């Protein structure tokens, strides 16, 4: 293992990401859409290539050499991920397609067995649709009630509501670790303490935190945690559900079929041990192995370095954005309380027009409701533009972005 870098060498890191050499509309690509999905280092891309060229095989049941190699690599990836988030045990890591499936798995398998009429599910108003709609469906089906913790003007959860809404009727609290709109980092430990006092579980949507900062599942003491590989330098089609094994053991399976059974008879079936009970059918083998290598890459840079770099660039961008007339930024003012996500609006330029103008300058940003319509409704903003950073972004890119924003402003308000 390479020694941890004391300070970050961004030019060196950029070399690892082939896509950053691309030009868009004649301009060098500036990729500021990392909260939607991250780019992939050559180490991950080559892992996929090598898998398919050298040892592609179906896993677990095979006795031949390729199956053996593929199985070992797949299970090593699981171990890497368990270590990365400091899980107690490797079998607390279940591979799924993405954070969305992870949350649905809990809503179906745990939720259908544990939520009853009159129970309460507590969410926050800043949740991504993926951490809202599965709970709405569950609540509808069971006659349970959803309540949303709201936010203050700076985009922090309201302390009073945390302690008011989480009560003895609460069965689970589903909360994002970092908001994909506001960038707010929520204090999960406070939530788990509040919830566990009433015997409620806590599911953490870590889609925006695990890729960007050190996340310690054991320390957070959350019961479930969901995240997506594609946002953390891994391939598309692979995600993770972490769960305390005591919960996993008591849950019925979710998807059923091959690979997850111990025995099947015409009259019934029994399940494999954890984590396989939750992994039906042929998994995304290459995806899991690729995600393991993405985790290697991140550990090698070190999550502290990743987070520090993003704080630095976010701070720089926030400062420079104040230079632009009519630009409004949403979310916490303090950089230490955010991940590298900046949502904003510029005068009355529609967010999609802004994204199109940025695209013409080679800058990829996102615009719209960011899968957080309840938050948009709460803030009474129809759409926002969003720039989100990763380890390979630079202040120089931010400068180009600021110039492009200035151009857009002049174009629309000549």
């Amino acid at each position, binding site marked *: 293992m390479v020694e941890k870098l004391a300070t970050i060498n961004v030019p060196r890191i950029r070399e690892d990401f082939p896509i950053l050499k691309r030009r868009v509309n004649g301009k060098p690509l500036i990729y500021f859409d990392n909260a939607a999905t991250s780019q992939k280092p050559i180490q991950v891309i080559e892992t996929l290539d090598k898998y398919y060229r050298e040892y592609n095989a179906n896993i677990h049941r095979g006795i031949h050499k390729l199956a053996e190699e593929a199985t070992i690599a797949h299970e090593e990836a699981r171990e890497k991920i368990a270590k990365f988030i400091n899980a107690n045990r490797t079998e607390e890591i279940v591979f799924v397609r993405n954070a969305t499936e992870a949350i649905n798995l809990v809503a179906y398998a745990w939720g259908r067995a544990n939520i009853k009429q009159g129970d309460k599910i507590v969410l926050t108003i800043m949740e991504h649709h993926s951490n809202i709609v599965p709970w709405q469906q569950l609540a509808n089906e069971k006659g349970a009630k959803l309540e949303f913790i709201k936010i203050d003007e700076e985009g922090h959860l309201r302390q009073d509501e945390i302690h008011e809404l989480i009560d003895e009727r609460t069965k689970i609290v589903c909360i994002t670790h970092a908001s994909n709109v506001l960038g707010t980092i929520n204090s999960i430990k406070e939530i788990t303490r509040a919830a566990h006092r009433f015997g409620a579980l806590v599911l953490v949507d870590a889609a925006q935190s695990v890729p960007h900062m050190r996340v310690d599942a054991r320390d957070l003491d959350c019961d479930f945690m969901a995240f997506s590989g594609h946002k953390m330098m891994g391939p598309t089609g692979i995600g993770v559900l972490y769960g305390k094994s005591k919960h996993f053991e008591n849950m019925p399976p979710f998807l059923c079929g091959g690979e997850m059974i111990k025995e099947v008879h015409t009259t019934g079936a029994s399940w494999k041990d954890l984590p396989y009970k939750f992994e039906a059918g042929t998994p995304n083998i290459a995806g899991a192995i690729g995600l393991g290598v993405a985790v290697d890459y991140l550990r090698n840079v070190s999550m502290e370095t990743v987070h520090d770099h993003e704080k630095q660039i976010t701070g720089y961008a926030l400062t420079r954005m104040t230079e632009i007339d009519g630009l409004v930024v949403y979310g916490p003012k303090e950089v230490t309380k955010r991940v590298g996500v900046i949502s904003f609006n510029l005068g009355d*330029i*529609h967010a*999609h027009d802004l994204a*199109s*103008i940025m695209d*013409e300058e080679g800058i990829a940003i996102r615009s*719209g409701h960011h899968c957080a319509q309840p938050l948009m409704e709460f803030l009474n903003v129809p759409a926002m533009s969003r720039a989100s950073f990763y380890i390979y972004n630079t202040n120089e890119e931010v400068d180009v972005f600021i110039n492009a924003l200035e151009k857009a402003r002049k*174009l*629309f308000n000549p």
Partner: protein
Amino acid sequence: MSSDIYKDIILDYYRNPRNFGDLANADVRAKDSNPLCGDIIEMQLKINDGKIDDVRFKGKGCAISQASASMLTEVIKGKSLDDVKAMGKSNVLELMGIDPGPTRIKCALLGLKVVKLAVYGYLGQAITEEVKQLV
């Protein structure tokens, strides 16, 4: 300025929309939205003898959707319903003088879709697949 799709004419129609507002004695109204951008367009038509006598639109959304809807109102005034039914994507692109690309094209076509919804509605005819596919 290098912004290819935000030509002066588009921005002009966006800032100063022609035929914006309500039509007191409209024969038919229609409204639709573009789920990508959240754009909303409403069209109000006055129809006489198989022709569009007058038209107003209202809406909210991005420059492309609002400008294209406004431009469209000018063009369809006086056209027969059959002519409007025959209009397609290419007519709108020609009108705007830009190619907004595969994603933003839906913004550009929203106005046309709503006009067609209104016309089919007025005629009591079922909406065709082609109209549904516009946005």
